[in-house]
């Protein structure tokens, strides 16, 4: 009887954790030797060995049932991998939701701060207007008082408005 060792590239199998999980879920025993996963079977074994981006399976072709096991492992791996991807997707979506939530909270916080600042500005503007009004009153009172004194000193009084400026022109003659 000739012995033929058969090698198969398992392109889909990339993650060793998922491979081990698939083997375990199929009720098979395995051992690890370096980067190799070895499933003993009778006097031979099915071996998975890591290449750069995928695994390569090797087994003795004299045991066609090993080829069947390999197919089952690949199928199981695909199922687990799909679940793994779904889980990843869920996690990513949860993160996205968290991020959006954080943004919403941040946005609300900013809007609240903006509202507080706007309120403060409105109050300050109100105070400013009141102070301007008081100042205008004070200027008017001062102007009236100066004009009164000027008249008492014999001046003729003339008011001149020039832009924001008020001018009191005083003239007296001998």
């Amino acid at each position: 009887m000739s012995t033929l060792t058969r090698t198969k590239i398992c392109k889909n199998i990339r993650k060793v954790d998922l491979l081990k999980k698939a083997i375990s879920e199929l009720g098979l025993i395995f051992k690890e030797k370096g980067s190799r996963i070895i499933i003993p079977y009778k006097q031979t074994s099915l071996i998975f060995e890591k290449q750069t981006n995928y695994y390569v399976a090797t087994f003795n072709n004299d045991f066609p049932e090993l080829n069947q096991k390999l197919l089952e492992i690949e199928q199981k791996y695909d199922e687990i991998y799909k679940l793994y991807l779904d889980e990843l997707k869920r996690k990513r979506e949860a993160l996205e939701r968290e991020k959006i939530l954080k943004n919403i909270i941040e946005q609300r916080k900013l809007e609240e701060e903006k509202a507080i600042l706007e309120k403060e500005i409105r109050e300050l503007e109100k105070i400013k207007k009141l102070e301007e009004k008081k100042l205008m009153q004070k200027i008017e009172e001062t102007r009236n008082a100066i004009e009164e004194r000027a008249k008492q000193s014999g001046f003729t009084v003339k008011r001149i408005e020039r832009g924001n400026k008020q001018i009191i022109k005083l003239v007296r003659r001998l």
Partner: protein
Amino acid sequence: MNLIIRIGDIEPCSTVEGPGKRFTIWVQGCSIRCKGCWNKELWSFNGGIDFDVEELIKKILEYKNNIDGITLVGGEPLDQVEAILYLIKRVKEKNLSVMLYTGYTLEQINKDPLKWKAFKEADIVVYGPFIEEKKDLFLRWRGSSNQLIQVNNPRYEFINNTSDRINEVEIHMDENGEIKITGYPDKKFVEEVLKCLK
């Protein structure tokens, strides 16, 4: 290099610093320092601010349509005679008149060719030191009776022919309530105005 003039204050439109409406410039620094001077804060050559004469001319021209000319008062304008002479020439080119105040006597002015030139270039010059004992508030545009008026422009000949005894004061109030008194107020009146501010 541009000429620089040191300035203590500016009033863009005054009616008490010469005939008509005048852009009045109080130059900073005075070497004469008359006893009883009203503007002692303008004596120091360190006070005020430096102005590029060209910038000052630009500022004057902003008011060109509202003024008859400029008045140079001090301080002592002829202590910065080079800048003053240039300013007079440039302002006259723009058809604005120049009234110049100086505390120098005619003899002193005569000895200095630049001062003399400024004296002749200005349209109106009020000259001579302020003498406290001769102080008279009713001499229009003069502070004491020894001061004389030289009219170089026939347009202002009426100044020589008037004998009006007139006392003028202007009180400028801005929107911040700041007050500036210009013209010829007596000390008592200034004190009374200051009381009104309290």
